[in-house]
């Protein structure tokens, strides 16, 4: 058992920090000699279901999308002509839920599963496991704004909703409720100087110590599979303990956080009603901006929605609540063929689909703009420390997992090049992640099917 007296002594010595205005705090964060970055790198990987339109030419983007990116002209690179790792595993229109969930899974790990639930560790979690990327309140954060609400024959529900995995049987729970994200990242945000509240937090740490002790006692009594599972919980409790310590240590003093989002979500539902989807997305991006600004997390995976449906208006099939859009996102992605209840007007369907995609582009661009607007005393923006990747795990229409494009915003702490258009020449998305990991100082050599890397993205 951790010595309680030691802990009490440590806690007693912990100083009280006051909230600083944003500007100074960012200066504090980055104020190294010569204005060099302090080395903190941030990563946000954003993806959407149902595919992006794939134009005929391998180096083109769908009409209108470049224009959507115009506000960030010069601040992004586009990698085109990418394959999804799923293709190497025959996951094109074969098997359960594919290509939708087949392309979702393996996207971040470069490996396809050997049986449902056996996802390998995804590259974001590999980064999260490196001490150099730790120190934030939450070591990583996974978001899925619109989960699939049901299981399917032979497939557990998490298969459709979980993008980040720590390893086989160890999904990283994806959040769909902005209130829960707020609580996770910002509870105790204000540095706690009320003695009674501090006493409660100190008490909380003692309880967490007791939980950790009990987990350690329990471990040897379990079989190896259960040990792995309990270990995942151990990691979660340890992180909660660190978070509690950080609150006592001065909270997230760097910035000022707003109110907890007020969104009317049914506590037992895993997806917002369609009409609330835009509000949920806005709230999530607002929280993410704050989270990066406050160093509440550094590694984020963000799926706009599940890669599978589970019903004609749930999961990827939902109607995203945009004015004038009456069909589901997924049916509209098949604008060119008679599909479900789609209108016979294929041009209208196509325009609606492109509107949905365009709306999501606007949201991502708005997010990176907000990161870019947060500037420290040396003129460095939060986006300079951050790499934001955005794309779909598949194509639209026939959902071909080839000729994909991925947009990289920001320099990730000066590691990544901006303003490039790169032809991946059918290399795999996993190759992109190999080089992203290199840029984060964690060269993995290879990542599943990613064998060559894509170092053109690096400076």
């Amino acid at each position, binding site marked *: 058992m951790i010595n*309680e007296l030691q802990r009490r002594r440590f806690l007693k010595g912990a100083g009280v920090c006051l909230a600083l205005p944003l500007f100074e705090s960012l200066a504090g964060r980055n104020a190294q000699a010569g204005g060099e970055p302090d080395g903190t790198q941030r990563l946000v990987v954003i993806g959407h279901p149902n595919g992006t339109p794939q134009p005929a030419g391998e180096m083109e983007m769908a009409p209108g999308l470049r224009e959507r990116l115009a506000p960030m002209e010069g601040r992004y690179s586009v990698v085109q002509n990418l394959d999804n790792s799923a293709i190497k595993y025959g996951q094109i*229109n*074969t*098997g359960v839920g*594919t290509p939708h969930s087949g392309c979702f899974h393996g996207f971040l790990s470069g490996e396809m599963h050997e049986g449902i*639930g056996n996802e390998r560790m995804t590259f974001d979690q590999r980064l999260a496991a490196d001490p150099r990327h730790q120190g934030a309140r*939450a070591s990583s954060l996974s978001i899925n704004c619109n989960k699939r609400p*049901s*299981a399917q*024959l*032979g*497939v*557990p*529900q*998490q298969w459709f909703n979980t993008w980040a995995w720590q390893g086989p*049987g*160890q*999904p990283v*729970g994806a959040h769909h*409720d902005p*209130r*829960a994200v707020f*609580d*996770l990242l910002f509870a105790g945000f204000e540095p706690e100087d009320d003695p009674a509240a501090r006493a409660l937090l100190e008490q*909380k740490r*003692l*309880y*967490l110590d*007791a*939980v950790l*002790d*009990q*987990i350690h006692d*329990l471990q040897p*009594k*379990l*079989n190896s*599979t*259960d040990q792995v*599972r*309990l270990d995942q*919980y151990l*990691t*979660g*409790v340890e*992180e*909660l303990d660190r*978070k509690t310590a950080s609150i006592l240590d001065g909270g997230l003093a760097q910035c000022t956080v707003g109110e907890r989002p007020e969104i009317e979500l049914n*506590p*037992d539902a*895993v997806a917002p009603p369609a009409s609330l989807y835009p509000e949920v997305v806005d709230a999530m991006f607002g929280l993410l901006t704050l989270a990066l600004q406050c160093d509440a997390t550094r590694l984020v995976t963000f799926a706009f929605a599940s890669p599978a449906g*589970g*019903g*004609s*208006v*749930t999961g990827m099939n939902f109607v995203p609540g945009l004015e004038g859009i009456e069909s589901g996102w997924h049916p509209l992605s098949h604008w060119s*063929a008679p*599909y*479900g*209840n789609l209108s016979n007007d294929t041009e209208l369907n196509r325009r609606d689909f492109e509107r949905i995609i365009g709306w999501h582009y606007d949201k991502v661009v708005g997010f990176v703009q907000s990161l870019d607007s947060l500037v420290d005393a040396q003129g460095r923006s939060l986006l300079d420390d951050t790499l934001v990747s955005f794309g779909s795990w598949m194509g639209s229409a026939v959902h071909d997992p080839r000729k994909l494009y991925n947009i990289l915003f920001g320099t990730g702490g000066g590691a990544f090049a901006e303003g490039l258009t790169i032809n991946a020449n059918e290399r795999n998305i996993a190759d992109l992640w190999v080089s992203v990991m290199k840029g984060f100082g964690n060269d993995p050599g290879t990542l599943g099917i990613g064998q060559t890397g894509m170092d053109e993205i690096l400076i």
Partner: protein
Amino acid sequence: MGLLLATSGCYTGVRADAGELDTDAGQTSGASADDDGDPPSGESTGAEPLDPELGDCDPDALANSTLRRLNRREYRNTVGDLFGLAAFPDIALPWDDLNTRGFDNDGSSLSLDTASAEQYFDAAVAVASNFEGAGTPPLGECAALSGDGLEDCIESGAQVWLERAFRRPVDDQSVERMMSFVRGAQNYSEARDAVVTFTLTSPLFLFHYKPSADDAPADSAYLVADRLAYLLWSSGPDSALLDAARDGALLDDGRLEDEVERMIEDPRSDRFFDDFAHLWLRLGILNLKPDAEINAELFADMQTETRAFFEFAARENLPLSTLLAGNESYVNGRLADHYGIDGPLGDDEWAWVELPPERRGLLTQGAILVASAGDAFSDPIRRGAWVAEHIVCQEPPLPEGGIPDLPAPEGDEPVTIRELLEEHRENPACASCHALMDPYGLALENYDRLGLHRTAYDNGLAIDPSGVLPGGAEFDDAISMVDAMAQGANFEHCATEFLTAYSVGRALGDDEECFVELVLDAARDRNEAFGLRDVLATLATSYIFVNGGQQ
């Protein structure tokens, strides 16, 4: 196969309320609510200890146990029962994803991350602040005390308290850990918070697990008690079960069957009947339909009907096939109108009614017809696949190359979906799989997407509901199909398989079919026309439940 009510004796046609069941529970067991903290003396009968039969099954085929946390239902019920909370506080708990069988109690589908850890901690604090602990050991009798007296009082009840909360024997170290928090308390209120917070954040409370074999073989009775309580009550064992586990009597010959009977008579078993039927038959899908909002009341009534029907047939131990072929149902005015049958007038009035000739059992109930249908039309392929998966457990594999759309009809002549399907089935690769599901769906074409009976499509074409079951039995329509299915063994096996999977908290592997057969054989030996209570009794003493539960 008789009338649902005819086989049920003197049932009055009103759903048993909790008060009635309370009385029954009091008569069958004087110990169900005995939480006074004094471990009753052992009552071991000295009979042969339980040694579940293995038959021809391969014990190595039994899958490993898997650690799992309490799911939300279990957490709310367990905490509510432990502390006597009038209402569970409105606090977030970790999400429960569903497993391949649609169940929410599978450890491999339940998250264990930082957010879960934090939610459990916050929940413990919230429960502490909502606590109404009078009467709950080891706290209630200590309320008037302070100082050393308070500490001694809590310590004296700590062992019993933690054994109840952790559902297993408790060592001195656990008691000492809890007391280290109690000792820091300044008054009763703080001591109470310490007990609640320590207990509810402990992994020994939060997790079901099975210690490795060499750790504590003597604890197997506790494991069975825990499994049984979460099966039938979605909550922890009461003191009567724990007493029987502690002295080993629980595993005496015949004792588990007695406990199953006692627990079914307890009102807490309502949770099993509601939750299992809801999850097995995926009644929640109704809430995800595009018209769920417009039809909210109707869909809720349908769910009530199906749950009540399941509960009645199960509680009364009617032959399992009654679920398919029973010809009475439980409706209110709105449902009676919807079905076009005589019944109660008001929407708040519910009654058991005899069904007209075109309706029999689960498959013709609104909830099943809506849940299994497509969102836009009856979609007989989808319905057939639903029946194949949930009712006979013979789901066809998903086709290579994905599921193609049905070809559009050629020419201007209207065609039925049966005709379209027949074209599709000219491809032998498609035919073999469709023969496993289409017959069910086509037979149910006499019921539209919302379960209304019809004999023709909107385009005027007549509906032909006849067909051949995968086993070869021919039928004319849904009713004769249901009769044929009720006479076969597939449904009994399938229902038992779902129940077994639910009881052990994981989907069963193909190799584990044999263990399900053992349960069924034992149920048949017990009662030729066995019902769900027979299955529960034999399940509780079966090899897979006693040895292979997910704990």
